């Protein structure tokens, strides 16, 4: 089952009994922290945990969370420029060179197929 929500520990009710209060956007609930007590970093008020059916399943690693977001923000920016350029030259069809190595950010060869995005701003991503 999958519904897990990030919440912040705001109170330890009983360490022995593994009971704590977690808060999500101002909504509080008592949860069981038995499954995360063994976390190497320990468990304390202020930590963020993933909540599922009244249990904390794991601590949320804030640094990793930030890393993920940073990764995403680096994506695509190179390609967006390329795609804009294609949109302005409708007759041009580039085909990927099968011998070129599938590199990441510094490659400039892109095959334009039916799937190419246009450059109308936000609506470009919504298929009719």
């Amino acid at each position, binding site marked *: *089952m999958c519904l897990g929500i990030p919440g912040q520990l705001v109170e330890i009710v009983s360490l022995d009994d593994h009971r704590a209060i977690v808060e999500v956007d101002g909504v509080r609930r008592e949860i069981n922290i038995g499954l995360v007590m063994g976390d190497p970093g320990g468990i304390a008020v202020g930590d963020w945990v*993933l909540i599922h059916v*009244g249990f904390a399943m794991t601590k949320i690693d*804030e640094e990793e969370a930030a890393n*993920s977001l940073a990764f995403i923000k680096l994506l695509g*920016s190179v390609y*967006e420029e390329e795609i804009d350029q294609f949109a302005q030259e409708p007759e041009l069809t580039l085909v990927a060179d099968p011998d070129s190595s599938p590199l990441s950010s510094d490659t400039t060869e892109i095959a334009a197929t039916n799937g190419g*995005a246009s450059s109308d701003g936000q609506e470009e991503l*919504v298929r009719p």
Partner: protein
Amino acid sequence: MKFVDEYRDPAAARLAVAEITALASRLAKPGQPVKFMEVCGGHTHTIYKHGIENVLPPTVELIHGPGCPVCVIPMGRVDDAIAVAKKPGVIFTSFGDMMRVPGGSGNLLEAKAQGADVRMVYSPLDALRIAEANPDREVVFFAVGFETTAPSTAVTVLKARERGVTNFSVYCNHVTIVPPLKAILESPDLRLDGFIGPGHVSTVIGNRPYRFVPGTYGKPLVTAGFEPLDILQSIVMLLRQLTEGRCEVENQYTRAVSDGGNPKALEILAQVFELRPHFEWRGLGFISQSALKLSPEFAAFDAEIRFDVPGVRVADPKACQCGEVLKGVIKPWECKVFGTACTPETPIGTCMVSSEGACAAYYNYGRLTKIPVKSA
């Protein structure tokens, strides 16, 4: 909401989609998009709730897998649950998701209408609390879910024993994620290029159990979080693997999943549960070693031992094509009874039964792409 809102940022989503479009265009051939399956029902729900399929280019197609532990409970097991619920003196507790799943003749909500004391709970601990508050009644908890939820049931059983509660038992229908994944990979009709791997199951079992997917079957798998950006990032990672000629298990959900999972949870699972030799999965048939039951040490809390249940196997209706939808062979709308005899209100099979079954999700959300919409 922290750790949620940031992962729904439309500007970042556009960046991810641009990258996906560029990478997929190198891989897809005309009429043959790159196909990824998300295994987890929660991922299916996110995909539809945010309309992710609309923002993906047509060169990437998402196939919805069987990771809905509610949907795969066979009708006969639901009938057994209802039989227990109807026994005098029983308080039958269940998660909301299970209340509308149809058995051979009705669901738990209907049983409640007929007089059974059926109560919805958010957590198995709530069921234990009800047992302690009603010592003269027998309280049964309908345990469903993958390895994400099983530890919670296990902790509850341990607590029941510790507190000397004798009027509490569990009707155990927990299933495990690896066997159905294998079953799909074994399917000769399989046409998939990679997997968006389960998220919260992986917080418990870690990433290592998925190594057979690239190792034996040559498909990449990326463990993904549940917000839209998580799914988009996972698709980027899968596409990069394909374009770079790699094939491995990668972890996108690093903020919650570690390679080794949650050792404490795994230890508790091993203590309280054991594997059933086989278990029937609605739409997929019998799969061996795919489900849990309480180990002999905890037999006192096993509802199947405490109560007589009919134990009758109910075959899925002949019209049902769920098995094919689950394996990605046909799409929901290609099923003969989709949308007419089989709807979210009158579900025939597992794919329509829960809001994240592939057919229900498509009916409620995805249908849109095929209905002419003039952009606002």
